[in-house]
């Protein structure tokens, strides 16, 4: 198990509020994006997800691994969304409640997409601050020049930092999820860097 994984389990099982930050950094954004799919047009998905985190904190439940926690969180968000829709008699309500079950193939596809991007997102987040900033800026479509101007550093520094970020991802992160960040020539997100 990785160090962060242990932190997350400790946070949830032992109710350690300091370590609970890791639960947020690991799941918050992805759960919001997942919830948005269901309730994005009728309420603020962030409120709904926040409530799930508080409920988990108040609940006496233990998880033996992150997979179990992920399952729990995705399912909680899903249920909360359905309940919200039902209680607020949203227009899509009947349609959603009829068709949707957590185990449905449609939902499985939503979860695959969410998990897929969550893993990439976590990989980037685990980079050092400066490297992370640069990766995120280039993700946002900014050119090396723009990044250099914004961060007040030279273009060459941007290039160097980017290269170091690739190396970091390649060396530090052992998960298969990080393969995708490197194409055969060892460059990250080639499409985004040009």
């Amino acid at each position: 198990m990785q160090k962060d994984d242990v932190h997350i389990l400790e946070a949830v099982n032992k109710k350690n509020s300091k370590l609970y930050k890791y639960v947020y950094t690991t799941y918050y954004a992805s759960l919001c994006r997942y919830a948005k799919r269901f309730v994005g047009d009728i309420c603020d998905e962030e409120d709904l997800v926040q409530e799930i985190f508080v409920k988990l904190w108040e609940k006496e439940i233990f998880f033996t691994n992150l997979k179990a926690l992920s399952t729990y969180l995705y399912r909680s968000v899903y249920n909360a969304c359905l309940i919200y829709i039902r209680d607020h008699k949203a227009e899509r309500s009947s349609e959603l409640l009829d068709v949707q079950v957590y185990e449905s193939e449609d939902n499985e596809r939503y979860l695959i997409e969410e998990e897929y991007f969550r893993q990439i997102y976590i990989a980037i987040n685990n980079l050092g601050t400066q490297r992370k900033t640069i990766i995120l800026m280039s993700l946002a479509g900014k050119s090396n020049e723009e990044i250099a101007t914004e961060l007040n550093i030279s273009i060459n520094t941007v290039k160097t930092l980017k290269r170091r970020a690739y190396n970091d991802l390649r060396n530090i992160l052992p998960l298969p999820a990080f393969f995708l960040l490197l194409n055969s020539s060892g460059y990250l997100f080639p499409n985004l860097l040009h």
Partner: protein
Amino acid sequence: MDRILKIVRLLHKYKAGKLTPEEYAELQEWLSPEKNRILAEKILSDEREKEALEELTNYDSNRAYHQFTQQISRPRIQHRWWWVAAMLLPLAIAIALFLKIDNNTIFTKDPFAQQSETPAKVEVILTLGDGQKVVLEKDRPVCIRNISGIMIHTDSSGLVYQGEVIEKEQLTYNEVYVPRRGEYTLQLSDGTRIFLNADSRLKYPETFKKDCREVELSGEGYFEVTKDPKRPFFVKVGDTKICVLGTAFNVNAYKEIPEIKTTLISGKVNIVYQDQTLELIPGEQSRFNKNDASLQKERVNVSLYTAWKDGLFKFEHENLEHIMMILERWYDIQVFFESPHLKEYLFSGDLKKYDTIEEHLKMLEMTTNIHFTIQDHSVFISNK
């Protein structure tokens, strides 16, 4: 979730061009429904990746966490725990002293390591029709040919019966007993395969009658019944009967548990108790309560109930008491709870069956406030 994580892993490897041929085939199979293909094309596209990561980045988890810390800093009701802790203190001290005197430190030795790595080393006992007992061991092949022409032998998977259907007045019954720490697979004369869990017993005839097949189970077993519409298959479990028409299902009927649970994986079964009959469809589980003789069914996550045969213990919101009951049978230990409320702690997750009990307990201890003390074959559970 396992399936989802697997597909995610395959997609990541695909994008990185790191799929092995087997994985490639697996992914291809998943891609065959059009909806899956559309999804894969979408999430593997650079635009979608960029869009998704941008969306994720826009959510501010730090701000949300900050909000959370403010919300929980309001006083919470905690005195209940203090009270319990105060009550437990003398007991905890007593146990600590007891252990100290015995000079036994938790987790420094590994008394079960060897046993748990090779659970099949325990003696599984086959009782033949004439009362003769045969010990079944993995490394010692057994071959018995009896008068009625039935061939009984063991192979790498377990015990196998071979022989044609003979019309006989009197059936000859055999019985297999799997003790704690054991598990065993057998194949009956009709090709039906049964995977027996620890502390379980199966009684069955060497060959079946022409019109019906009947076996008797106590403990837990996973059945893959050979289809034969002319000869329905019955499993007698306590006072109930499961009527099967070619199918796979799991029966959990340990005597110390008040319920008999039958979980259907595929096919169709009927659960019969006196004049009540309950039909199950795949994904459903019946629960027969031995105390009030009630028979009910519900939809369940099937994998939770069949994981044991694939080398896992899987739990979803399961209380510690139940989890420890399963570990007791598998590691042949006795569990003592220092206080009853500990039994109510809920866990989700899975444990690998072939890991040692120390590994499981160490992990639980590391991430919870529960303390496990191992003393010979006993486990004491307390709060830290």
